[in-house]
């Protein structure tokens, strides 16, 4: 295990693996990990990039609402859009039917942009005039890169005070973009390879009201399984093992990553739902299989159906642990306490963030987020903003440690 290499300092960057090439939908994370997207850009951001390959994500369901399905849908849809193989198991009779409810990526960039300042809008118009000079196929393929070119246009227009005197050359053979103005030749020259790591290839924003196109759903690398039919867990375990054998982990480049989605694992419809030890050992073996492959497994379960001891055991097994909570209609107290309450459909709690190859825990600034459906189409996660309350606030701070609080107040200037 220990390499024969001599190391002079504690922190030595491993240069040989500094720039591995990864397939679409993957990006490098810290400590030699590689992320794939959760399908929810906000959740990726919260988790520091996404779900690391080899990790087990567990979601504690709210027994009263299907909010965990929101997470599952986006996770699955993101994988299918990127052409990543999927194994989906559910207690429903016809799990494949569920694929018909998956959301489709938002139609165009303009649709999904939430806030855009007017200056930027103007810049983009200038840029779009040059759209016709690009081949249509290039435009599709390099959309991520193009958006960068446009932003450079805006930058140029700002720098040179010239409105439309920018030219852009896109050389297909060289995979190079050159930007120039009338006076200076070739202000910017960018190699597209460097740009191809665009955001579009990693994650999408999904329109929950638009079903995913059929050709994504009918792909050959999608396996569905109803756990209602399984008398014990061996069938599911075998299917997981077969599926994961497609993505063995060797330290080279990763061409493809797999996704496993297991919905309502301990649902009472399943024959094994009272075999707590068996379920625990399945989770353990799933975790170890996933850890040694280039894949991510997400498993949702209703904690209320488990005994408290097993519920804790399961939580310990998770690399990333989330929970969802519904908001009851007309909770007037909460409505007063939180701003933007009327748009919220529920809460997402982040209990644990995967830490692979490191001992340092990830401490988030906030662990509770509101789940909102923006324009009833897009899933957004936001930090909770407490509405200002009269009188004393933050009593928990005041009571602990008098000496530190006094120095704190001195630092705050209003």
């Amino acid at each position, binding site marked *: *295990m*220990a*390499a024969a290499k001599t*190391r*002079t*300092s*504690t*922190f030595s960057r491993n240069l040989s693996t500094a720039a591995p090439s990864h397939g679409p939908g993957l990006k490098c994370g810290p*400590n*030699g990990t590689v992320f794939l997207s959760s399908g929810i850009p906000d959740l990726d951001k919260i988790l520091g990039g996404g779900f690391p390959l080899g990790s087990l994500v567990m979601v504690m369901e709210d027994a009263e609402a299907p909010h965990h399905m929101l997470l599952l849908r986006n996770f699955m849809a993101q994988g299918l859009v990127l052409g990543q193989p999927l194994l989906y198991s559910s207690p429903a009779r016809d799990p494949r039917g569920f694929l018909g409810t998956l959301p489709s990526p938002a139609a165009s960039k303009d649709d999904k942009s939430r806030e855009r300042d007017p200056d930027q809008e103007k810049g983009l118009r200038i840029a779009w005039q040059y759209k016709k000079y690009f081949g249509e196929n290039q435009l599709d393929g390099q959309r991520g890169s193009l958006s960068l070119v446009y932003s450079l246009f805006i930058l140029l227009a700002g720098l040179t005070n010239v409105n439309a005197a920018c030219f852009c050359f896109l050389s297909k053979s060289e995979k190079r973009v050159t930007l120039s103005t009338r006076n200076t030749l070739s202000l910017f020259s960018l190699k597209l390879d460097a740009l191809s790591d665009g955001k579009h290839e990693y994650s999408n924003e999904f329109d929950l009201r638009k079903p995913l196109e059929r050709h994504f759903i009918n792909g050959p690398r999608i396996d569905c399984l109803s756990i209602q039919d399984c008398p014990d867990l061996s069938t599911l375990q075998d299917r997981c093992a077969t599926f994961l054998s497609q993505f063995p982990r060797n330290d080279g480049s990763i061409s493809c990553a797999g996704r496993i989605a297991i919905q309502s694992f301990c649902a009472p419809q399943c024959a094994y739902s009272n075999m707590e*030890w068996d379920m*625990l*050992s399945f989770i*353990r073996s799933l975790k*170890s299989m996933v*850890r*040694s492959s280039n894949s991510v497994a997400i498993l949702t379960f209703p904690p209320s159906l488990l*005994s*408290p*001891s097993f519920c*804790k*055991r399961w*939580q*310990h097994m998770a690399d990333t*642990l989330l929970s969802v909570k519904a908001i009851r209609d007309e909770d007037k107290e909460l409505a007063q306490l939180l701003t933007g309450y009327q748009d919220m459909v529920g809460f997402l709690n982040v*209990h*644990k963030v995967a830490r*692979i*190859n*490191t*001992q*340092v*825990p990830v*401490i*988030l*600034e906030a*662990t509770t987020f509101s789940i909102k459906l923006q324009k009833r189409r897009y899933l957004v996660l936001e930090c909770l903003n407490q509405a200002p309350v009269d009188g004393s606030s933050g009593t*928990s701070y005041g009571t*602990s*440690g008098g*000496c*530190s609080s006094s120095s704190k107040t001195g630092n705050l200037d209003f």
Partner: protein
Amino acid sequence: MNQRSSNLLDEALGLDQVIEPWPLRGRVVAIEDQVETSGSFVLHHLLKRSLSPNSSNVTIFISFSQPFSHYDRILRKLCPGEKKFLVAANGSSDYVLDFLHYCRTLTSEFDCSLITLNHEDIYSSEDRPTFLIQMEYLADILIKAEPLATGLATDVHGQLTVLNKGRNKVSNFHFKVKENVVECFYPGRSRG
């Protein structure tokens, strides 16, 4: 980085002085943690101490939770020296207590130390958590990692309680886990 820079944790365990034989020899150390606060860093810390360049210790490492590459990568950050450790993998939890009893007899027979990491909160709902009580009884040193009562913070990751039965001493302090070291300090003394 100073290999021998000791901290409150070392002090509580009696590892702050360079003495032979290793102070934990023949001892059983039980670490307990919770979902909110992982105690695995104590394991890393003890591995680092046991494998430090000027010791001749051999470690048998049995992991039920993480692959060995994980521990290997962390240890590389903790200490520049490369040591090989013997490995054995994945077991079944039903026979753990039997197995631990067996390991404990080894500690007295071969004068080695036994270090375990267990999750305390698993047993919190039980009236009489036999396994946990037995482990705590068998341990010479009990280390508990707990979250702060006030919630998560970036500068304090949690608190450690070390009960050293041999010295009849209880120490309590806060900790912050970094990539290459664990910082321990008394409450309110965080360097932020």
